[in-house]
């Protein structure tokens, strides 16, 4: 029954991984861009919550809302500066453009914040249900993640702006012909993706210590999850996150924890080779 505890813990973490991966997969789905600044933006999200918490004592979950808005704006800015010009160029250009943003953020971040690990000392106690004990923060994070997913889907399917995003994702030229300002929608969609990354970062700050470099690990996990879930499929990303979280929870029961990345990346490569559209089906 101990395994259940591990799995549950992993699943809760998986919700947060899923949100992060959703950000990446959304951007991929709408504009065929792999955002290599994903990791640093997650880290910025963590820092956002940390700074608001430590400087003015704001409740981390409240801070999360501000961080989300900041994430959206930052994303739109990044799109305007780095991606807009090369959106139609070969893949390598957008990969390197987003990577240059990665470098810029890490460079500035290391200078401003150094590499000492930060923690958000906020505890919500723990909840015990039978054999399983979970930390309050993990539970709230999972709930927050579910809420965010729900809001995202409401947005995409029930609002006009969301419809525009889906239209542009489906067929950019057709959308333009119908009068949708595709560049602005692309900028907004990129912002949505970074917003999700920032939210994930903020939630991660409530569990683990972090530095400006911590985002890298979650970026790699996001790649694996996106491929698992199908590039361009947000629900697939959430599902993939849960799968990964569960795997991470279970494996240490049978193998030393250090083997987890090996299996994750082997799985990654195998899926790319065998079922590149992912377990749940990619877009396009």
């Amino acid at each position, binding site marked *: 029954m101990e395994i259940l505890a591990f799995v549950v813990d992993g699943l809760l973490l998986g919700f947060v991984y899923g949100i992060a991966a959703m950000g990446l997969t959304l951007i991929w789905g709408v504009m*065929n861009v*792999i955002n290599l600044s994903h990791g640093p933006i997650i880290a910025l999200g963590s820092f956002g919550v940390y700074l608001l918490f430590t400087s003015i004592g704001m409740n981390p979950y409240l801070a999360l809302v501000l961080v989300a808005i900041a994430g959206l704006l930052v994303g739109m800015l990044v799109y305007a*500066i*780095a991606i807009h*010009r*090369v959106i139609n*160029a070969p*893949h*390598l*250009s957008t*990969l*390197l*453009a987003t*990577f*240059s*943003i*990665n*470098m*810029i*953020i*890490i*460079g*500035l971040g*290391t*200078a401003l914040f150094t590499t000492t690990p930060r923690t958000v000392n906020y505890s919500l106690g723990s909840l015990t249900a039978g054999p399983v004990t979970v930390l309050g923060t993990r539970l709230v994070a999972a709930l927050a993640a579910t809420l965010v997913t729900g809001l995202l889907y409401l947005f995409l399917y029930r609002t006009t702006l969301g419809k525009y995003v889906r239209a542009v994702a489906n067929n950019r030229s057709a959308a333009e012909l119908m009068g949708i300002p595709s560049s602005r929608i692309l900028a907004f969609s990129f912002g949505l993706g970074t917003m999700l990354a920032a939210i994930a970062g903020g939630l991660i700050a409530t569990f683990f210590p972090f530095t400006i470099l911590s985002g*890298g690990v979650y970026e*790699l996990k996001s*790649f*694996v999850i996106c*491929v698992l879930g199908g590039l361009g499929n947000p629900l697939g990303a959430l599902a993939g996150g849960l799968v990964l979280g569960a795997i991470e929870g279970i494996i240490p029961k049978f193998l*030393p924890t*250090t*083997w987890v*990345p*090996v299996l*994750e*990346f*082997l799985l*990654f*490569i195998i899926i*790319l*080779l065998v079922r*590149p559209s992912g377990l749940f089906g990619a877009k396009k």
Partner: protein
Amino acid sequence: MNAWRNPGIWLTLGVVAAFSVWPILTQKAASREVLFTMLLSVVLASSLNIILGYTGYVSFGHIVYFGLGGYVGLYMISSLKVTLWLAIIGGGLASALLAFLLGRAILRLRGAYFALATIGVNEAVRAFINNFKPFGGPIGISLNFNVYKDYGGATQSLWLAYYLLIAIALGSIVLSYVVKSSKFGLGLRAIREDEDAAEVMGVITPDVKTWAYVLSAILPGMVGVLFYFKNGNIEPGDAFRLHFSIELLVMVMLGGYGTVLGPVLGAAGYQRLRGFLLTSPLFKDIQLSVAGALLLLIILFIPAGAVGWIRHRVPVLRKVLP
């Protein structure tokens, strides 16, 4: 081959040789170290260029061949007690073998999927070696200091490594040129431009791509051995750093992908810039940011890189800048 009548290649080789010889003449260890880093980058960038610039396949995790070569080489030296020469060959062969096996599998993927797969490979190898006891697990392999005695002592070993690196660096430029001016290279470039059209014209794409990938892996494997031999030790955290791998991409793009001279200039230029930024009090903390900003400007405004841009603007020079 009348390709060797092109002054451009001799000019490139000559300039690189001249710069490399400078520390030998002055016997200055400091300039030797600067040149060592530059020549290392030249080898890595030129090799990456074969799969990236010529064939059009974006390898993000290319550093894996450098790290693997280093590991195999150091293992051979410390546990199997072989000489440096054999270790270098061993490192190169190990990387070539990995590239050959992987190539068949992941070269079936296109574009961003291939790029992601190479990242996956790098991380998988790193994570695996982290657990692999014969390679020292997370602690890695350390060379016993006595090893250097076989090569005339520590100082002599450093110079020896440098001489070997010069040879390999010049070799990498020759390799790049030979590939580019050969029929094989024509096939690669056809694949880069339009893989399906290339197939229709008769290019046997799976074989050709695999060989390009193998060729792009050998020299990084070999210089990996040299670098870690000098370093005295290797650990998984350092040997497979994705950031460095991507900096290689920057070097190739900066100088101009798909040319022989491009990666050379890009590598030298980038290392020079890095050196300057690291020692400048103003920029040292944000060295990565400045490099990033520079990369962004290049991507946005001169995507063909320095050499590519010149070749486009001044077509007459196209013959001379290989």
